[in-house]
């Protein structure tokens, strides 16, 4: 009798679980919006936020460049400045003062006009110390911006930005900045809508509700319709956008898939028009079978190894050089890195705003062995055990394994590998607690200075312990110089020093590879991976 009761009780428990499961299932919501002329865009990760003054990543930039517009835009193929909110601008003789003339019909997505004061408000906001913006430094080329950010001046009127009238913005620069106009496509220069921000919180408050769908007011070609974190962000036509006639798409749906395998599968079944990336294995397959779907564009980034110059054996320039010369980059890139990337024999990617480094570091095993012997380690004898550190990732691992094999074969040295989780790795690198460490640098704007200023003595991105007074002086000179040729000459000389002393070993130059459905037209490539949604159209939608 007792057992019968128990059997019933068990059944009851099971039923409860089943009921809960089914009950929970009723909450599913379907994508009930029109997807006809919408670009379904794989965007990598989930954005941290949509506040232009808070976010830092490429992912966020893509969404924000659909929702906001700066003073100037950029041609998606050449990155040449194009009119944005400003229909024209004047540059002073010395290149230090820019006067922007704002168009009359520039409007916020709620219909308010975009005024000069909106830009000043935004710039003051991002530079206010309490805002704690991680990308505030992008504005430091503006006179007084750094001083304001660091609290040395407290009145924003003393910063080199002014609005003589509603439709004019004047920016005074700290030093000649050839890339100033191009930087206007970066979110840190975007205007924000004062009334919206202050409706939902303080001027410099992070994480208020102003960035939610329904609240956010932007001035870009699209406006935020829906934001379901980790599912999708839907942006639809902004009826108040001044150039709305030129926009082909009805909107963009950004899908956050950080798993590139998943992204590729969704692309294959036709759920995505564009992926954010493609894995090396899939790259090979598509290149072989569907090359028209595979896109690959040069990207302003360098993959390299840092060497710790503060401790043996890499405090000896001969050892550093030996390691650099013993790395067969062609083999490494062709067989391991793949993805159409290019072996790097210098640090700044070739043809960065017309600058290509003339000095190179090649592949020369005989010379490498000679240098290592000269440093006291003939055939690698007596060479201490060194460790190559990388953050955990399949591709970093295979590159490290190959480098290890190459160094062992060419130099007879034993290099151990070590992987660390991202933040631990960053900490090891910052603390100079490594021998060799995998590194990468992606430029914020197209100019060699964004690469070369990393290795000045006090730069936080140096992280090698290397210091050269001559190098620092040349970089300072380049920053001061307005003349392009003189500027590049100084940079050439600086990079030559860098490649002679080799605190770093360049490995390869990045490319951006992604999958793109044939019906997507007008998605141009450029060095910054900047995407202009204005020109994109979906072929079948245009026909139908």
């Amino acid at each position, binding site marked *: 009798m007792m057992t019968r009761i128990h059997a019933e009780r068990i059944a009851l428990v099971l039923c409860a679980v089943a009921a809960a499961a089914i009950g929970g299932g009723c909450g599913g919501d379907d994508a009930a919006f029109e997807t006809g002329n919408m670009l379904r865009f794989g965007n990598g990760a989930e954005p941290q936020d949509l506040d232009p003054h808070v976010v830092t990543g490429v992912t966020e930039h893509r969404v924000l460049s659909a929702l906001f517009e700066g003073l100037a835009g950029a041609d998606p193929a050449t990155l040449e400045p194009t009119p944005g909110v400003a229909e024209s601008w004047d540059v002073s003789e010395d290149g230090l003062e820019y006067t922007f003339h704002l168009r009359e019909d520039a409007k916020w997505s709620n219909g308010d006009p975009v005024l000069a004061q909106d830009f000043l408000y935004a710039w003051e906001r991002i530079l206010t110390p309490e805002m704690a913006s991680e990308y505030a430094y992008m504005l430091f080329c503006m006179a007084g911006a750094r001083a304001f950010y660091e609290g040395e001046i407290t009145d924003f009127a003393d910063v080199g930005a002014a609005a003589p009238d509603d439709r004019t913005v004047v920016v005074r620069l700290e030093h000649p900045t050839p890339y100033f106009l191009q930087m206007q496509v970066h979110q840190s220069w975007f205007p924000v809508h004062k009334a919206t921000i202050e409706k939902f919180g303080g001027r410099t408050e992070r994480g208020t509700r102003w960035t939610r769908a329904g609240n956010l007011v932007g001035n870009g070609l699209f406006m935020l319709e829906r934001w379901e974190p980790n599912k999708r962000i839907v942006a639809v036509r902004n009826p108040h956008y001044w150039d709305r006639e030129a926009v082909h798409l009805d909107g963009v749906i950004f899908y956050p898939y950080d798993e590139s395998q998943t992204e590729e599968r969704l692309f294959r079944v036709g759920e995505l028009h564009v992926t954010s990336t493609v894995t090396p294995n899939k790259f090979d397959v598509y290149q072989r079978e569907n090359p028209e779907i595979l896109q690959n564009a040069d990207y302003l980034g360098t993959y390299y190894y840092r060497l710790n110059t503060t401790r043996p054996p890499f405090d000896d320039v001969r050892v550093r050089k030996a390691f650099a010369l013993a790395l067969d980059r062609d083999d490494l890139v062709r*067989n391991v890195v793949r993805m159409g990337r290019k072996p790097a024999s210098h640090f700044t990617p070739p043809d960065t705003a017309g600058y290509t480094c003339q000095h190179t570091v090649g592949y020369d095993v005989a010379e490498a062995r000679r240098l290592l012997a000269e440093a006291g380690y003939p055939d690698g004898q007596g060479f201490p055990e060194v460790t190559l550190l990388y953050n955990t990732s399949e591709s970093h691992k295979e590159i490290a*394994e190959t480098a290890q094999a190459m160094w062992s074969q060419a130099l007879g040295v034993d290099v151990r590998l070590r992987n660390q*989780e991202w933040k631990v790795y960053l900490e090891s690198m910052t603390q100079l607690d490594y021998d060799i460490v995998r590194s990468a640098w992606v430029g914020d704007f197209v100019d060699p200075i964004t690469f070369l200023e990393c290795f000045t003595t006090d730069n936080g991105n140096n992280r090698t312990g290397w210091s050269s007074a001559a190098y620092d002086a040349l970089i300072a000179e380049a920053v001061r110089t307005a003349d392009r040729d003189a500027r590049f000459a100084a940079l050439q000389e600086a990079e030559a020093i860098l490649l002679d002393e080799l605190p770093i070993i360049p490995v390869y130059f990045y490319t951006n590879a992604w999958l793109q459905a044939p019906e997507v037209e007008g998605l141009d490539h450029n060095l910054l991976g900047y995407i202009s949604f204005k020109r994109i159209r979906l072929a079948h939608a245009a026909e139908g």
Partner: protein
Amino acid sequence: MDSRAEVGAIDARALLTQAEKGASLWSDAGRRLAKNRLAVAGVVVLACVFVFAAIGPFASPYSYDGQDRENRFAPPSGAHWFGTDNLGRDLLVRTMVGGRVSLMVGLAATAVSLVIGVLYGATAGFVGGRLDQAMMRVVDVLYTLPFTIFAIILVTYSGQSIVLVFVAIGAVEWLTMARIVRGQIMSLREKEFVDAAVVMGLSRRRILLRHLIPNALGPIIVFVTLTVPRVMLLEAFLSYLGLGVQAPMSSWGSLIREGTLAMEEYPWLLIFPSLALSLTLFSLNFLGDGLRDALDPRSSKD
């Protein structure tokens, strides 16, 4: 001695003899195990896997880190039975070497969690009361702490030796073991033979170790066979966090994880390491079932 107590004691002794079989049967267990064909097959296959991992690499013309980059992703062939990987390394020898890591981690870490979990869970379940409550609260706390952070801290402050992998895995895996054992012991504790043992004046320690634990062995063994695969895969996660073996050395867990990434293009990278792992786990499972049956104090009556 009072006659009623006398009778009670005799009853108790009879009951106890029955229960004691559980503990004294170890000698018979081997004999009974040998009769179980599946279990014997399991032992044989396991032995083969051990030989494969331990001695195999010496018999191969390739080394686990010898690269042949022009010959990468070669499908299985006469030269490379298991094919080659992304750097043209022989997958057969990499699977053998990876087996060393996985087998070692699988057995050692499971043993760690087994010993801690059984002793802890049995003590809590047997003693009961406030001590049990306190001990289970400790389990709750440990269960909740973020394992990722724990592993990161472990690797940061004490290097990255393989022993740490045992510690890290043992530290989490014993918790479930302890819960299961505690539940078992609590229900066994109410059984007659325990009362009998108490009447006999046996020490609590002896009752626990000689009577209760052996009687709970069935579920424990099953759980062990379930823990080994978890542990082997956990090792791959720890290696993601930088704990444990370093490239170019690998383990089955890591090989399988990498194989998944190339599943459609180069399926052998997934199939062979998975087969090695599955074969091992299946044999282990048959052995576990056999052991369970052989150790079962009641099975002799069937």
